């Protein structure tokens, strides 16, 4: 149990806090609309469907605010840099940004469902009230109109006998924007299913831009101000009769206050990517490696990197809008940076084909570079003992680290804490390591992890061992379990911290 706390404790805590805020918002706003005296008359028309619609609306405001933040990678990089003081556990949370983004998206989907169902009921009951099906009080309330002499505003958005719920929805701002943004949300979700994302990234990425419509509609969704309340009198009056001489209030348009901040931050993020896109990048060397791997050595003025960081590449000749992440395989001590690109999908295949058709020694297609962005590998040097596990193309970050260690060792860098580096590369090349060019014979095949961990534990008692993985999910699960299994809460014994990077 203690081992689980070391490795997952902070994530679980953050999730609990997030869920707690959601529950609090839901219950608070439910009670606000269910019991608040200023909604007495609105409730007369709608019953409990009013709080059932408003409570998820509050949760939606909160989550729509949150959803843009985990995908602002430059912001996260900034936070990561400023957390250097706060310890690696905090920074590890930033690695899980995409998981959090998906979680928030699911919550938005769920709350949208509840909100929509409640409003379906509302639309129907507003219509029925107007047509007098719920008795004289409801009927009279429905007759209230926007009138400046009488100082009243309408309570029931249905204003005529011929209005049906469908017509109500499509002739009000709230209804129309509601339908449009729900549709956008559904399309975004169906195209981001794992199956589609892994196979046809373009469909996912282009459809996901519907979020622009989503946020635009969301901000104007309440502009019609149809949920109205009345001024509360003191002493409270008998609400079974309708008194006509008090002031009806229009609600405050709230959603924009929640989402404007993150929208601006995201806009800055996209602007930054565009600026980086305009900066010139030149090729130093292009090499096509076996097993359809392309190595690009690039030079960009003013570019600074740290070990194991990754960059996003954009090639306008292939696709204007797509940015794809690649780990850098060069060390910061070199005067260029390199990436190794494996042929996986449309974009990478097109790039390799384009490069194969280049004349000897020619410059490659125009390439834009965004980044560099930090990963868990930056922390490799913080641990006394590091275990680096790379599978397939996942060996790339560790190539960078090993090269950097070599340079640091060569230059006798006093800051090098790392005393020992164990690495296991799981790939199928035989002789010299193709990526680092080091003569260290890599042992290939699948290691027996229990053996490896046991061995490391024996050789390094009372050490904190950082385990770094870049590879497939299945391997990640396996290693994570082993880290938990072989860690000890006792500070005198070995502790394994698991870090993973995977796109």
């Amino acid at each position: 149990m203690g081992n689980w706390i070391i490795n997952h404790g902070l994530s679980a805590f953050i999730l609990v806090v997030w869920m707690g805020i959601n529950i609090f918002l839901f219950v608070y706003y439910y009670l606000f609309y269910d019991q608040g005296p200023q909604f007495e008359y609105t409730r007369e028309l709608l019953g409990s469907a009013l709080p059932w619609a408003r409570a998820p609306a509050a949760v939606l405001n909160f989550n729509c605010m949150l959803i843009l933040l985990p995908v602002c990678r430059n912001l996260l990089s900034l936070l990561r840099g400023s957390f250097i003081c706060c310890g690696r556990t905090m920074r590890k949370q930033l690695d899980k940004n995409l998981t959090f983004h998906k979680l928030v998206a699911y919550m938005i989907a769920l709350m949208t469902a509840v909100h929509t169902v409640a409003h379906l009921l509302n639309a129907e009951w507003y219509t029925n009230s107007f047509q007098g099906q719920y008795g004289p009080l409801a009927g009279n309330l429905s007759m209230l109109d926007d009138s400046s002499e009488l100082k009243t505003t309408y309570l029931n958005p249905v204003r005529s006998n011929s209005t049906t719920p469908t017509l109500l929805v499509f002739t009000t701002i709230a209804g129309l924007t509601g339908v449009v943004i729900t549709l956008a949300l559904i399309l975004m979700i169906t195209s981001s299913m794992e199956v589609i994302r892994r196979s046809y990234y373009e469909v996912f990425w282009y459809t996901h831009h519907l979020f622009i419509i989503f946020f635009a509609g969301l901000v104007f969704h309440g502009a019609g101000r149809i949920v109205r309340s009345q001024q509360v009198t003191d002493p409270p009056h008998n609400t079974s009769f309708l008194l006509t001489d008090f002031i009806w209030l229009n609600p405050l348009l709230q959603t924009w206050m929640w989402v404007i901040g993150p929208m601006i931050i995201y806009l800055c993020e996209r602007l930054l990517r565009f600026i980086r896109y305009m900066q010139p990048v030149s090729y130093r060397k292009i090499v096509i490696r076996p097993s359809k791997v392309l190595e690009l050595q690039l030079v960009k003025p003013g570019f600074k990197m740290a070990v194991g960081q990754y960059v996003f590449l954009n090639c306008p000749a292939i696709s204007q809008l797509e940015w794809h992440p690649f780990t850098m395989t060069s060390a910061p001590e070199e005067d260029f940076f390199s990436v190794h690109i494996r042929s996986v999908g449309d974009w990478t295949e097109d790039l390799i084909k384009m490069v194969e058709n280049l004349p000897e020694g020619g410059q490659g297609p125009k390439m834009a570079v965004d980044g560099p962005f930090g990963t868990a590998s930056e922390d490799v040097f913080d641990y006394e003992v590091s275990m680096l596990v790379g599978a397939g193309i996942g060996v790339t970050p560790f190539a960078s680290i090993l090269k950097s260690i070599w340079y640091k060792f060569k230059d006798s860098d006093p800051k090098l804490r790392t005393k020992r580096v164990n690495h296991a590369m799981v790939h199928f090349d035989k002789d010299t390591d193709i990526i680092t060019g080091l003569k260290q014979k890599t042992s290939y095949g699948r290691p027996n992890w229990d053996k490896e961990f046991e061995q490391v534990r024996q050789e390094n008692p009372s050490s904190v061992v950082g385990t770094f993985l870049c590879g497939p999910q299945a391997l990640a699960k396996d290693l994570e379990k082993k880290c938990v299994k072989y860690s000890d809460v006792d500070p005198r014994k070995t502790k394994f911290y698991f870090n993973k990077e995977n796109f």
Partner: protein
Amino acid sequence: MGKIEWAMWANEQSLAAGLIYATGGIVGVAGQFRGWQFAAFGIAAGVFVCLLEYPRSKRRKGTSVERTGQYCFTVCVKAFGPLTRNYYVRAFLHAALCVPGGFMLATVLGCVCLGIASLIYLSAAIHGEHWEPILPRTEQPKSVGNSIKEPPQNPPPRPPPELRRKKVDKLETAVYDNPMSVTINE
């Protein structure tokens, strides 16, 4: 977007549409809305679409990922032959099923989603895609090769049983792991 199989996205979209159609229908019927008959139709159509779309098609290229427990659905859908194989039929079917949903607010969202799914299926059909069932691979019986005509005459050379089994205390230097645990008393 050259190599996309549109049917995959159409499948996800129509499954979602079926669920939304059915949910809208349930709300309409339960709330006894005006026009609840359309809602009742929505439930039936939504459930039908979900059942039809649950089994994923086999992909033309690459690995197909099955949905949990989809095999029995695959068998049912396969039984309809060309009606379910052809995506033009599916596009038309979805278009037809979605129309009654437009007459009532609760089912309008299901109607639009199913309509969009119908359009994506139309695109898939135009690109020549069709539905292919994912069936479990039957194990080929291992055919005996021609070279096994004469079995070996002598048994392979082996040390006597006492030396054969690995000692427990020599595990660390062992070249490989035992698949089963070794105890001294065995």
